Structure formats: C-alpha cells, structure tokens
C-alpha cells in the first residue's frame, strides 16, 4: 500500500462522496417508505454501489419479482459498467495482481470511472482503494441516514412519499432529454412502449420486470441505430 497514492485517492473521492450522500439519502428514504426494511436498504447500497440498478431492483423486490427477472434487469441496467471496467482494465498499472483487480472491480461506478480516467498516471491499487472508499462511505451512510429519517416522519406525509422514487427518476431523465433530441426521442419511445405494455390487452400479460427488459432492448437498439452517439455526448 502506497500511502501517498491512497491519500490522493481519498482526496479525489471526497466530491463523489458528497454527491452520493444526497442521492442515496433519497434512495434510503423512498425505499423504506415503499416498504423495504432498513437493514435491506442499507445492505443493498453497501453491496451494489450503483444508482439506477438498485433503484430498479428495489422496485422489483417490492412487487415480488422472481430471481430471473431481477438478475436480467440488473444485468441490462448495469451492463454499461462492462465497458467502463474494460477501459479501467487498460489503465491500471501492469503489475496489478489478480487479487487487486478483483477488489478494484467492485468500485467501478459512473463517477469513479470518470475521475479515474481523468488521472494522468497509471492507476495503482492504492489510489483506487482511496478513490473507492469515500464514495462507498457516502453511498452507504446516506442510505442509512435517509432510511432512519423515515421513522421521524409524520404518518400522513409517508402516504405521499411513494412518488419520491419516481421523482428521482424524472430528475435523472429530464435534464439530458432537454438538451439532446436523441435522448428525448429514446425517452418518449420508452414511455410509449411502457404505456402499451400497461394498457394493450395482449401485452398486459407480460410482467413488469420482463416488459422493462423488452422495452430497454428494443428502444435502446432503435435509438442507437437512428442516432449513434458521438464521443463527447457520452458524459
């Protein structure tokens, strides 16, 4: 363990940690209000360290989705980490051991990926340990804070809180849809398909988890074919 590298990682991780805290507080708050026990909510954040993936997972758990739906939904939503991890694998120092690679892999998130890619030097395991540690603390701590806050919330407010999780989704979708017509197209097409799966007689039989998977595959494929994304748009 190189102390200087580790401390630099900690420093670079603090902004991510702060950002994660407020997001995961919303996650903890809404998950517990939707009916998930506090321990499960915190355990999910600690072991998953991902936003959209675990939001979708909780959604499925709440409607008692089966394990195949859960595994496939998680796979599709988080498959982007595959590419990020691939990029990181080419930037880590060549002498990084297999054991260290197994450990570093746990912490590949959008933000950690982005910060590590900005670093000029090759990535050492010490640096990555520091960079990952702070966001993990922020993400898990925020979840716990949000989850515990629910118990001091008046009962009457709780009934309206079911919408908070969806509010958070809207906060993720709208800003890029506002700026990029291609994202707006994908969002509108996804909503159209989703409405069809909810109201068209034959399609209604499809369970929530599966319809999400089908919609994701079709709409993302169509959007990618019609509007291939340029490099600079990806951030």
């Amino acid at each position, binding site marked *: 363990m190189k102390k200087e590298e580790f401390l630099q990682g900690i420093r670079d991780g603090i902004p991510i940690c702060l950002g994660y805290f407020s997001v995961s507080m919303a996650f903890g708050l809404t998950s517990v209000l939707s009916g998930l026990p506090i321990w499960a909510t915190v355990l999910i954040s600690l072991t998953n360290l991902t936003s959209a993936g675990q939001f979708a*997972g909780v959604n499925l758990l709440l409607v008692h989705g089966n394990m195949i739906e859960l595994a496939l939904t998680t*796979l599709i939503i988080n498959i982007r980490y595959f590419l990020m991890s691939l990029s990181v694998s080419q930037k880590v120092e060549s002498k990084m051991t297999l054991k260290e690679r*197994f450990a570093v892999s*746990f912490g590949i998130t959008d933000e950690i990926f982005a910060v590590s890619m900005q670093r000029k030097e090759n990535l050492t395991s010490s640096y990555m340990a520091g960079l990952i540690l702070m966001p993990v603390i922020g993400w898990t701590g925020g979840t716990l804070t949000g989850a515990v806050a629910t118990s001091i919330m008046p009962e009457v407010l709780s009934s*309206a809180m079911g919408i908070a999780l969806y509010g958070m989704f809207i906060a993720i979708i709208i*800003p890029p849809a506002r700026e990029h017509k291609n994202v707006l197209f994908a969002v509108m097409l996804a909503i159209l398909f989703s409405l069809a799966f909810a109201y068209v007689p034959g399609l209604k039989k499809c369970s929530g988890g599966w319809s999400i998977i089908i919609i994701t595959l079709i709409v*993302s494929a169509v959007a990618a074919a019609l509007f291939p994304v340029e490099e600079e748009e990806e951030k």
Partner: protein
Amino acid sequence: MKTEYLLMGILVMAGMTYLIRVTPMVLFRKKINHKWVKSFLYYVPYVVLSAMTFPAIFSSTGSKLSASFGCVAAMILAYFKRSLLTVALGAAITAFLVQLAGF
C-alpha cells in the same frame, strides 16, 4: 416481506452487478470501439428509467390527481436541473399537499 426472499434478491443483485464489473477487469484487455454498441449502452439508463416511471408514477400515491400534480412538479423541478433529492421531495410534498386539500 420475507427475509429469505430479500436476502436472496440482494445476493442476486449484488452478484450480477459485481460479475459485470469484474469480468472485463480480469478477462479482457481489448478496447471496444463499436459505435452502435456504445450508443446502445448510452441510451439504456434513460430508457429503463422512463419505462419504469410511466405510467407507474400515476398510481404511486393515494390518488391519481395528487400523483399527477406530483409528477408535473417533478418535471418542472427537473427541467430546471434541481438535485435528485430536491426533485424527489418536491414531487412528494406536492402530492402530499394535494391529498391534504382533500383530493
């Protein structure tokens, strides 16, 4: 909710997420530069969240009307790029006020 079901579910979620992250790190060294694949991955999060939100959001509170108001509030706040927490709470408080007014 059964504890075994939850533990199993969390294990599946965590296991799958880790598998995705660890596979390229230990197995692959070559960089993917396929434009369609990259574009596909770019759209996935937006498509998933859109499909999950609509139309489910309209049955997420005590009444369709309060949910609709909450939804509009969320969209306005999100349009002006408020933080996730602000948008989430804004939607909830709006829905709460509409319910409080007796709708």
